[in-house]
């Protein structure tokens, strides 16, 4: 066991949690405004691909990151228009974005790089810098969480965001422009999730590959629900997922059965998911969603 619980585990946890935090905190803005965001996966892929492609051409991760943010914002804007303007079912529209971004990066990389799903590798010096194995985006993830707490509870925008997510009619009656706040919430979610995606492609790795989010968008969504839609608990939930993942990585090939054989990798890989179910059922229980989550605000005018 001592071989598992080391300082390396702490760093590994941070690295693995980073993309989750960005995506989950992003999702928080959207969901706090009342718009379900199952598109985090697609938004991450949009960010990951754009960051890698642009960094490859521009030779600068910073420009890549800016481009990723714009791609995320744009994609989220599409989602927002569908859900807010045209009253699309939020789960369906989000699923559509996810499907779209399984195909779009592949088609684009085919056109740009003559490759059917990935970008070329990017030299190390053009990647997002890291100190002692911890990326600057990991540090920023913490900052973004705290900033989100501040925005949510200490600024007029946050007050409006929360009100719109709980009871849009009341917010409307108070003179808040509900739709605008929701657009803002969804677009911010796209921006942050895209940063999480950029971390995957030009922070943690050095290229984009097909479907590289590998379900992290859904885990982020779970973390958001786990964290009861509050910034700091959500971040902690992401860290928990990251920790579970890190432990399984450290455990693979270390944990032994009584017979002395390795615990089959399939069981090790199951651990984070089983833990989630147990914790959710046993310790967290019901988490109360924002009152108007998933309810479009289209009233008789």
């Amino acid at each position, binding site marked *: 066991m001592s071989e598992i619980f080391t300082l390396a585990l702490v760093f*590994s946890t941070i690295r693995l949690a980073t993309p989750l935090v960005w995506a989950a905190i992003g999702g928080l803005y959207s969901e706090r405004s009342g718009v379900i965001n199952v598109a985090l996966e697609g938004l991450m892929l949009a960010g990951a691909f754009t960051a890698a492609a642009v960094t490859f051409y521009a030779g600068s991760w910073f420009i890549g990151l800016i481009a990723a943010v714009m791609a995320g914002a744009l994609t989220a804007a599409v989602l927002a228009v569908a859900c807010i303007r045209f009253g699309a079912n939020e789960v369906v529209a989000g699923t559509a974005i996810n499907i779209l971004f399984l195909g779009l990066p592949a088609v684009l990389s085919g056109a740009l790089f003559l490759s*059917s799903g990935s970008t070329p590798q990017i030299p190390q010096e053009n990647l997002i810098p890291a100190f002692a194995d911890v990326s600057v985006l990991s540090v920023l993830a913490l900052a973004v969480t705290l900033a989100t707490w501040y925005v949510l509870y200490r600024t007029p925008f946050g007050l409006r965001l929360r009100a719109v997510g709980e009871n849009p009619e009341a917010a409307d009656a108070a003179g808040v422009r509900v739709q605008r706040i929701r657009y803002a919430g969804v677009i911010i979610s796209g921006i942050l999730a895209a940063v999480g995606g950029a971390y995957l492609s030009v922070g*943690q*790795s050095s290229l984009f590959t097909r479907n590289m989010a590998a*379900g992290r968008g859904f885990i982020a969504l779970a973390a958001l629900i786990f964290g009861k839609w509050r910034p700091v608990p959500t971040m902690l939930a992401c860290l928990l997922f990251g920790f579970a993942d890190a432990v399984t990585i450290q455990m693979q090939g270390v944990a032994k059965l009584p017979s002395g054989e390795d615990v089959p990798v399939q069981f090790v890989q199951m651990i984070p998911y089983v833990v989630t179910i147990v914790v959710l059922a046993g310790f967290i229980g019901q988490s109360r969603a924002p009152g108007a989550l998933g309810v479009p605000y289209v009233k008789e005018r």
Partner: protein
Amino acid sequence: APGAADDPSRVEVGIVFDIGGKDDRSFNAAAWAGVKCAETGFLPDGRTSCGRPPLGIVLRDVEPGTPTSIEPAMRAFAERHYDLIIGVGFAQGPIMEVVARDYPDVRFAIIDGVIFEDDGKTPKKNVASLVFNEHEGSYLVGVIAAKTSRTQTLGFVGGMDIPLIRRFAKGYEEGARSVNPDIRVIENYVGVTDAAWNNPGKGKELSMAQIGRGADVIFAAAGNSGLGAFDAVEQAGTENGRARRFVIGVDSNQNGVKPGFVLTSMIKRVDTAVYDIVKKVVDGGFTGGFHVFGLEGDGVGYVVDEYNRDLVSPEAIAAAEEARTKIVAGEITVTDAMAQ
């Protein structure tokens, strides 16, 4: 009109990739390079010459993406009487067996698979089965890894826990143990779904964890996820101008991916094998049956080139060459985990 570019006067070749797709930087990519070379004389990037002449063929490709789309893709070519249909990957074996029976006049080739007549013994006449002894190549890089490792701890990162990947792992481990029976080999897998081939982040974490436990040479057989191992060793940095940790590439020559950090690559000459079978069809010399590519004839092996010449010690190369000789001579039998 469909297939407007079809030109029956030329040899038509259709290739059906494995689920991973032609971009896996692994055996699909190598097969793609082989057919592209036959079509254009260039590598898939369209710029670099592949060193062989183009063969004037019409080339069509499909990435089925799902197991159920393989058969219709293969049949789409067969219905149009293509001259050669190449299936990439052992998983296409059972399907090609059926399709090849329905179209006895069409020639087929399968990479990594073997197809028999209905009696289950005679190799099928219209199918060329191109098989590679990956375990033997893996054995050699295992020897090199063990000879290079200062910590006597090695890493192996596989994509999924499936028979083919175990074949690499087992050969690698046996090669390493032949040098030092007590050497430690940490064997890890990225995931349990197809996403495991495209998760370089996780591949990097696994490699870093192995490095943390002392591994200083990591053999990555995980498609794109394996590239995470390259990032990990690069991040581990250098000491006196020499990398502190090394990675071993797989399938294609990956020595140039991170020069200085790639100890060697366990190559599998799928590209040559594919080019050659196309050429045989063009020249009229196609023969069905087994085409085994082992250490003999350099169907599998390891690469020493300008990128890694200074990284591999002469003793390591000597030991690997000795092992090669013995395997070819049958003095050493490497366990084939896929046959277990």
